[in-house]
Every structure is written in structure tokens, then in C-alpha cells.
């Protein structure tokens, strides 16, 4: 059985069970656990995954998990999550052994850091590359596209639908936001892909 991937352009970022429920109530079939303790919401997450919700976890920021194989096995096998995000290439390589989709995080904070991130892209290509903060995407997209044609996600500092649309217009495939107002705006957008 293959877990679901991401469909559509909006990926709600949640940090607790309440936000998870809000996203699911709006009809989303996918969430990103961006922060908070994954272990504190493990029951609702496992239930959502069983119902076919695609769940992605930012392993660099979420609390309660070690960045190791035991944690990856737990996410893949026990919880049925769809994928993981990290800046660490080795962790992503391990994750693909557990049939988790791998999303490589790259920080777009300055040109040096961006280049370091782009140089570390794992092979074979990850499922997606997540650029943080997303609002930097309009500025850095040409540099990214000069290196890779992998789908681009934008995460971080998307606090309005206008910002999300700007990032998508700049060429991002998926955008993530932690704001319910933004989720509402995009919940009526037809899913493409």
C-alpha cells in the first residue's frame, strides 16, 4: 500500500490537535506537522493517516522525535505517514529506505546558505524541495531553477492569501501556511494534479 502524496497547492501547517481538526474540517486531505510535539498528537494523527490523509513531518523542528532510523520506522510503519522534511541529506536517505517521501528543506536566508543547500540536494531527487521562508521564493526562484527541476514547496511566513499567491505565481508548486484564514481562502480552490 502506498501512502497518499500532496494534491493541490495549499498544505496546512499544524502544531497541535486543534489545528489538525480545523484543517480537516475545511476539507484538506494533507497536513504538515511543522512544529510542536508530534507525540502529544499521535493518536489523532494516526487516525487521520488511516483515513487517507497525507501527513508530512518537519523532522528539524518537531519535538519528541530523535533524528534516527527508529523514529523514521515509527512514522512510516506504525503511523502510516506520507513523508518527512529535513535539511539533513543523510536523514532523507534513511527515510527513503522506509518508503517515506523525502522533502529536502533548504533555508533561503542569504545567498551563501542557499548555495550550500542547493549543493546538498540528495540523489536520486527528493519528492520535493521545501524553501524556507517561502516569502523569499520570488527572489530566489531563478537560482533554484538553475540547479533543479524538482517540485518546490514554500514554508514559513505565509500569513495571507496574497502572499501565498505571490509565491505560487513565482513558480512554487505547493505553499504551506500555519494560518487558518489562509487555509479558508484556499479551501475552495479546486485541486489540480
Amino acid at each position, binding site marked *: 500500500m502506498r501512502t497518499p502524496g500532496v494534491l493541490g497547492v495549499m498544505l496546512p501547517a499544524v502544531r497541535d490537535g486543534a489545528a489538525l481538526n480545523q484543517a480537516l474540517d475545511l476539507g484538506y486531505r494533507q497536513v504538515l506537522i*511543522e512544529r510542536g510535539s508530534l507525540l502529544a498528537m499521535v493518536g489523532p494523527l494516526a487516525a487521520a493517516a488511516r483515513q487517507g490523509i497525507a501527513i508530512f513531518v518537519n523532522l528539524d523542528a518537531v519535538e519528541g522525535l530523535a533524528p534516527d532510523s527508529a523514529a523514521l520506522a515509527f512514522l512510516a510503519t506504525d503511523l502510516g505517514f506520507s513523508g518527512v522534511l529535513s535539511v539533513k541529506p543523510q536523514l532523507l536517505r534513511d527515510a527513503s529506505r522506509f518508503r517515506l517521501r523525502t522533502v529536502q528543506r533548504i533555508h533561503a536566508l542569504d545567498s551563501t546558505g542557499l548555495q550550500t543547500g542547493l549543493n546538498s540536494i540528495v540523489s536520486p531527487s527528493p519528492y520535493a524541495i521545501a524553501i524556507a521562508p517561502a516569502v523569499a521564493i520570488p527572489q530566489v526562484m531563478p537560482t533554484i531553477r538553475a540547479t533543479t527541476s524538482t517540485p518546490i514547496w514554500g514554508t514559513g511566513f505565509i500569513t495571507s492569501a496574497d502572499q501565498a499567491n505571490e509565491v505560487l505565481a513565482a513558480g512554487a508548486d505547493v505553499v504551506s501556511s500555519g494560518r487558518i484564514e489562509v487555509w479558508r481562502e484556499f479551501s475552495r480552490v479546486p485541486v489540480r494534479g
Partner: protein
Amino acid sequence: MVAIATRTIVPPARLRSVDGSVGRLLEAFGRVPVAAVIRRGEELPRALASHVPAVFFLRAPAFHLGPLVWAVQARGKMAFVHIDLIAGLGKDRAGVAFLAREIGVNGIITSHSGLVAAARAERVISVQRLLLYDDLGLPSALSALDHARPDIVEVLPGVIFPLVVDQIRARLSLPMIVGGFVREPAQREGALHRGALAISTSTAELWP
């Protein structure tokens, strides 16, 4: 065979007392509010010839850093080294002490609160980076800065600054430098207009 250039080996007299005074830096940024970010040695001559009062070394070679730093100081500018990105140097008190005592840097740049304390102990200026990749992480990043009390905060990337400046101000009264993808004059003016002390950029066209 590689010579390790440190002050112990090559002691220029003028480096006996390195200026670690944040007051002088603030004053200099008041006149020319730009720091030149140097990623490769070949970018240095242009920065030396410019009017920037401070040079930030981003990927410096720790054990061959001395001549670069002294060249900056010989021009009456202040030299800062990003300790987190230096290959070969411990990101710890001993690493900060090496930069302060042997190289004689005016200050260090770091993302780590622990190194801010080490810089304070070594009497060099501390620039702590506020790395903004995640809005959900902003409150905890601000409390870490509030606790560490660096001399200056460097906010990255520049595009975020207008979105967060009020939130930062409400929490911190520290002077702010804006850096990261600041490539256009309009971005520089925008940051300064919003109350940034200075910008830091590797775009040589923005060095006055």
C-alpha cells in the same frame, strides 16, 4: 607547507588594542549604514576601497584569517567573522577566544546564544543572527535573543524585515542589521527607512 598567520606569530603593533566598542560601530553605521559581506578573498579589495565601516567575513578560513582581518583594520574599518561557518574552528569559547586574542577581530557573528556570552567575556562585539525561516518559530527566537542580549541583531532574510519589524521592536530594543538577499538599492532604503541600523550585503554595487 602553510604558515598559520596569527598575532602570536606576526604581531603588528597597532593590533595590541582591538576596538571592541559597539559605540564606535553604531556611530560609523550612522554615517555609512552598510556592512560588506565577503564570501571569497577576491571580493575583499573592492570592500577595502569602499566607504563601508565594517566587513563581515562569511566563510573565512580560520587559520589563514589574520592578514584579511588586519587589512580591513588597517583601513580604519571593523572586521567581523561569522564563527558558525568557519571550517576548522570550534564553535565554542576557545574558538571565540582564538578570534578575539590571536586574530584580533572586532566582533563575531553567530546564531548561537552561547557564543554571544563568550564574545562578551572576550570583549568583542557580538552580532547574533535572527534566522527567520518559520513564523511559528519567531516568538521563541525572540526570547532567545532577549535572553542572550547581543550587541546587535542581524535579521535575515531581508524580505522578512518589513513583516516582522514591529514584532521584534515590541520585544527587543537592540539595534538591527538587515541582511540576506539585499541586492537592490530600494531594499536597502526600505530597511533603513523602517529603522534598521544598517544593511549587510555581498552585492558590491550597494557598498558606498
